[in-house]
């Protein structure tokens, strides 16, 4: 019984990569196991918790519900790439200051989604932010500190 494979070429964190993958391998396992981007985490394997969130062609997707072979030609950004570009340096600093994470397992996915929120450049109150972030589960913080951090960065950016 040999597994079916496919060869794909895509861009991950700005670099082009070509790999032969098992067709059943999902994106988050591909990123973690083949490329070593372990910042994306596997939480529920069911598209619920958001720990595996990565950016695919500009939109946040679930790495556990996306197959690697769907990513032919795609541009993928993980937390490692997002950190390197400095796009969310203010958010990351605020997360640290506000202690908006405890175990840190949800944090990369949480920031991928928060980056999308911040990119909208819209005024949002706490309830709006809570709603926007509801696809990312955190079991440690109770969310209050996360909402504080995102709210203050969003407000600061809007003020310019």
């Amino acid at each position, binding site marked *: 019984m040999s597994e079916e494979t496919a060869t794909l070429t895509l861009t991950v964190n700005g670099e082009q990569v070509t790999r032969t993958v098992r067709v059943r391998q999902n994106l988050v396992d591909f990123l973690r196991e083949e490329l070593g981007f*372990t910042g994306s985490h596997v939480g529920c394997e069911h598209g619920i918790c958001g720990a595996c969130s990565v950016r695919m062609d500009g939109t946040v997707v679930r790495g556990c519900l996306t197959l690697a072979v769907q990513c032919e030609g795609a541009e993928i950004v993980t937390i490692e790439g997002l950190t390197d570009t400095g796009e969310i340096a203010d958010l990351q600093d605020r997360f640290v200051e506000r202690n908006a*994470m405890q175990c840190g*397992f949800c944090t990369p996915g949480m920031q991928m989604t928060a980056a999308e929120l911040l990119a909208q450049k819209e005024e949002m109150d706490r309830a709006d932010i809570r709603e926007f972030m509801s696809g990312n589960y955190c079991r*440690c913080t109770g*969310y209050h500190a996360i909402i504080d951090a995102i709210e203050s960065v969003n407000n600061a950016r809007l003020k310019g």
Partner: protein
Amino acid sequence: MSYIHPYDRPNSYIGRNLSRTRAKRAVAGRGRYTDDITPPRCLHAAFVRSPYAHAKITRIDTEAARAAQGVRLVMTGAELAEMCTGPWVGTLTVFDNMKAEPQYPMAVDRACWHGEPVVMVVADTRAQAEDAGELVEIDYEELPVVIDKEKALAPGTPAIHPNLGDNKAWEKDAVTGDVDKAFAEADHVLEETFYFGRHTAVSLESRVLLAEFDPGTERLTIHTSSQCPHMIETVFARTLGIPEHNVRLVAPDVGGSFGLKIHTFGDEVATTAASIKLGRPVKFIADRLESFGSDIHARENRVRAKIGVMNDGRLTAVDFDVLGGAGAYSQYPRTSVFEANQIMNITFGPYKHEHFRSKATVVYLNAVPTSQYRAVGHPIGISVGEFMMDWAAEVTGVDVFDIRRMNVMEDDGYPRKIGTGIPMKDLSHQACLEKLRTLMDYEALRHEQAELRKQGIYRGIGIAGFIKGTAPGPEGYYGAGGARIASQDATTVKLEPNGGVHVCLGVTDQGQGVDTVMEQIAAAALGVPVEQVRAISGDTDAVPYGGGTYASRATAIGGEATYQAALDLRREILEMASKLLQCSPDTLDIVDGNVVDAGSEQERISLAEIGRIGHFQLGELPRGYQPVLSHTRRFRLEGLPYIFTNGIHGAYLEVDVDTGWIKHLKHWVVEDCGRIINPQLADEQVRGGCVQGLGGAFYEHCIYDENGQLQNGTMADYITPMAGEMPDIEVAHVETPTSESELGAKGAGESGTGAAPGVVMNAVNDAIRPLTKGRVTEQPMTPEVVLRALGKV
């Protein structure tokens, strides 16, 4: 000039918010969790699990699986049992008359719960191991299933483990005073029955273990997501017959734990056995489905409560009966009866127990074994006790604050005992009550509630006081109970040659910020900048033997050990400096990493210079003087089973009386965890704990059908709280340092979880009170439960 206590020094690190270094790497995706570590030639384990809740295993055929691509090992439960020194028996001597069936890491000839591991497959990849698992043929002969705790002891119900005679695991009762007389004399006697569903921890990082046995050195190295490295090391070593000193256990970053990761699991032992057998690294990660079916469960209890109350609101008698539904085995080595025992201890805990009776019974069920999960027993006991207090307020017409003011133990009335005989001291119920009333602006809330009711909007206000057992001592359960679980803890504080300080901890950090707190304590005690201090935890090769982090003990127990060890190092540094400077150590102090003249703070010699001389230039020291520069202290609680904390929650929520939907609007906490080292970290422990409790109160439930089949094994079906449905949580403190240590810290990690379910149950009942005589007495409080209380379904 005399020594200034670290708390009183200007800019002390005690009581200051400092950020966690681990947080800085987590935000960049640079956390290092066990699954992020994959050594060369690593293999992967997967498990074939019982599809039945109770079945005899009559045949296992592994031939096809062994021949499958990439498979390196297939091991049955019987084969694994041969590698074990013996079965586990989950009893502790402190639990009189407790019965437990011996248990092997995987089912040998009988599976006793849906999800119990039966066969392990180890292959080059996890996918190959899972594929081959599907080729394992197992014949089962179904056996009768016991899943309803109410029927577990009924005549005619078969014993799950015939050797035990029946399904009773343990029973205990306690009585103080003349309870029957007090009930006879009470103006009101109130009785209610409560039901609490099964929950599980749902750490976002599931259980994961990487075992590496080196046949050359016979060293076994285990990386695992654990709260208690030494305990796990001890249990695995003894189970598999490896000398403990040949085992190294490393807990890297831990992605959530909540008590789940203080336990030992059969699939993890099997993975370790595979590494020993193959001489190669083997990794196992529980997928989410197998997490729901094999992580410990908790909370399944029925409680019947009865109180006697006088017309003026005085509580005169308490009687309650706990029935706990454990799983198929008692979880080794911490047992499955702690929860019921803790409910006995803490229910009505804030109040004076003159006439008190309680009873607990725990029964075995064909379900996942239960054991300690964050705030063991407290969510149940607090929900029950505080419901009854609110009911007493209702029948006597006394306000909910006033009835608690009348009945709590007075702040100046310690030491005293609660009904089960456990001593209480250093508590502050009265101060917390008054602080909460102001914090939540109670009068204004009552006014708003009344106004909104006129518009058909039903909001409820709840309050719930609590006591919380933290930082258990060796005279309580584990040490005295016979389990090899340390309730002492130890810290080694060392001065490095550059003047840096290593703080090696027996306690561990799963994101609470334990490392940072310990760095703050050591820096304050020593008198050095915190940047000069580095905590090291979670590696049994690098730290002294300790218990790890469970039962809100890290700061209370480990913190005191750190504090004392740092003071020992401080004394030695001053002694060495006095020899170099030819003065008395009493004239010296340490400030900002320098030895200075006490008082004037004139700099005399830096710690870097002390480190250099102490490690390299020892010839500058007098003959006969040998510096150590490394100090270990241990700390244990003496004469008490726990350091109790206390506090009170407030909640304001809205009930949609047509749909039963609850919108939680605001949550307040006033708690007393003694001396606070890092206020932000303490607050975040409280907030996170609250939401974990709220999840259990509103949504979470491991649902079994009558055949013992777990019905909800995904996070789509087992609901944990999302950001959108949780409220902001305001936290305040009363600080009464414990008199049990110099540091004065008590535990802070669990009280949020303990009291949150009770306060929202009270608030829901307050909301629906004008509409119905029905009450919500069941958790999770699903819309159906609320509508039933409203008489609508």
